[in-house]
C-alpha cells in the first residue's frame, strides 16, 4: 500500500500508451472508413470488389487474430513492425472496416433529392459529394463513429498481449510485482471507463457543433 503511488505512475504511463494507440488507430480507421465506404459506392467494379473484400475480411476475423498475424507473420514476409506500429495497423484496419459500413450507410441515407439537386446545379460527382452530400452524411455518421471509437479503445487492451506497455500490460506488471490483483485491475477498469466517457462526451459536443449550420435539414 505504501508504494502505491509509484505503481500508479506506472499505470498512468500505460494510460498514455493506450491514449496514443486510440488516437492513431482512430485516424487510420477514419481514413480506411472513408476509402472503403466510398469505394463500396464507386462506379467501378474493381473498387467495389476491393472495398467489399477488405470489409468482409476484417469484420470476419477477430482483432486478436489480425494483430497476431500482423505481428508474427508479416516479419516472415520481410515486413518487421514494432509492437506500436503493429497495434495501430491492426486496430485501424479492423475498426476501419466496421466504420466503412457506417460511412456507406450514412451516404446512402442522404435523400435522392439532394443528389438530383447536385445534378441540377451542374456540380460534378466530387463537388456534389464534398459540398452537399458529405456535410449532411457526416452528422449521421458521428454517433456511430463515437461507438466505434469506444470499441477501438476497448480493443487496445489486446495489444498488451504483443508486449506493448499499455494500461492492461502495466496492470499485469504491477500484479506480478506486488501480488496485489484488486488494486491494479480496478484502477485500470476505472481509467478505461473514464476514457470511454470522455470519448462519448467529445463526440456529443462535436455533434452539437456540427448540427448548428444544418438547422433546416432533416437528419
Amino acid at each position, binding site marked *: 500500500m505504501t508504494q502505491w503511488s509509484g505503481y500508479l505512475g506506472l499505470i498512468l504511463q500505460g494510460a498514455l500508451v493506450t491514449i496514443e494507440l486510440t488516437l492513431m488507430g482512430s485516424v487510420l480507421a477514419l481514413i480506411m472508413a472513408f476509402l472503403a465506404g466510398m469505394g463500396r459506392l464507386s462506379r467501378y467494379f474493381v473498387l467495389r470488389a476491393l472495398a467489399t473484400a477488405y470489409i468482409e475480411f476484417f469484420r470476419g476475423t477477430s482483432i486478436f487474430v489480425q494483430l*497476431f498475424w500482423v505481428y508474427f507473420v508479416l516479419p516472415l514476409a520481410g515486413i518487421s513492425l514494432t509492437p506500436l506500429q503493429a497495434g495501430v495497423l491492426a486496430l485501424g484496419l479492423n475498426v476501419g472496416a466496421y466504420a466503412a459500413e457506417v460511412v456507406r450507410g450514412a451516404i446512402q441515407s442522404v435523400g435522392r433529392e439532394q443528389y438530383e439537386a447536385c445534378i441540377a446545379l451542374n456540380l460534378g460527382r466530387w463537388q456534389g459529394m464534398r459540398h452537399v452530400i458529405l456535410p449532411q452524411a457526416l452528422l449521421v455518421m458521428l454517433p456511430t463513429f463515437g461507438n466505434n471509437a469506444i470499441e477501438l479503445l476497448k480493443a487496445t487492451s489486446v495489444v498488451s498481449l504483443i508486449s506493448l506497455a499499455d494500461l492492461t500490460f502495466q*496492470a499485469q506488471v504491477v500484479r506480478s510485482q506486488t501480488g496485489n490483483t484488486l488494486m491494479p485491475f480496478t484502477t485500470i477498469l476505472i481509467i478505461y471507463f473514464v476514457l470511454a466517457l470522455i470519448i462519448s462526451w467529445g463526440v456529443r459536443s462535436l455533434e452539437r457543433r456540427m448540427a448548428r449550420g444544418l438547422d433546416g435539414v432533416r437528419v
Partner: protein
Amino acid sequence: MDWDWNFVWEIMPTLIQGVKITILATLLGSVLAAIVGLAIALARRSPNRAVSRSVGFLAEFIRGTPLLVQLYFIFYVLPDFGILLPPLVAGVIGLGLHYGTYTAEVYRAGIDNVPRGQWEAAKACNLSAGQTWSHIIIPQAIPPMIPALANYFIAMFKETPLLSAITVLELMNQAKSVANTYYRYIEPMTLVGAFFLVISLFSVVLLRWLEHRYGKIER
C-alpha cells in the same frame, strides 16, 4: 518462409481440438448472455429507481471497459475473495456478462416495440405482472430480436481468442502453443484466421436466413 502443407496436416488435429473449445465457449457464453441480458433489461425497467439506476450504471460500466481486463478481473481478482474458477468457466462468465450488456439493449428495443394495446389488454384480462410478461410480452418481443441477438453471438464468437489470455486452451491458444513449439508462425496463425473467416461467413448466411425467417427488428 514458405507455406508447408505437411506441417498444416500435422497440426490440424490440435487446432480442431481448439475449435471445439472455442465453439463450446461461444455456445455457453451465448446462453449466459441471453439470460443476463434479459435480467438487465427487466431490472432497468424496474419501478424501483435505486435498482434501475444502479443496474443501468453497472451495465454502462461493463460496456465501456475492455473484455480482456474483465476476464483478468474474474480470473485473477476473484480468487482473492475465495472464488476460484476454472479458466473456461471464468471465460464463459466474462463473455456472458460483457455481451449480456449488449443483448440487454436488444431486449429493451424489442420490449418497447410491443404495442401499448397488448399491455392494456393484459391488464383488462386481469393478468398479474408475471403472467403479462411470460404469456403476452416476452413471446411477442422475442422473435423480432432473434437476428440482432444472433449478430451479437457472432461478435462474441470472434472475441473468444481473448480467452487464451486466461489460459483457456481454445483455438488461438492451441495455435500459439503449436507455433512456439515449432517456431513456425505462418501456418498456425493463418489457419486460425481462416477458421474464423470460414465460420463467420457461414454464420452470416445463417444470419440472413434468420432475418428472412423472423423479420427485421425495427430501427
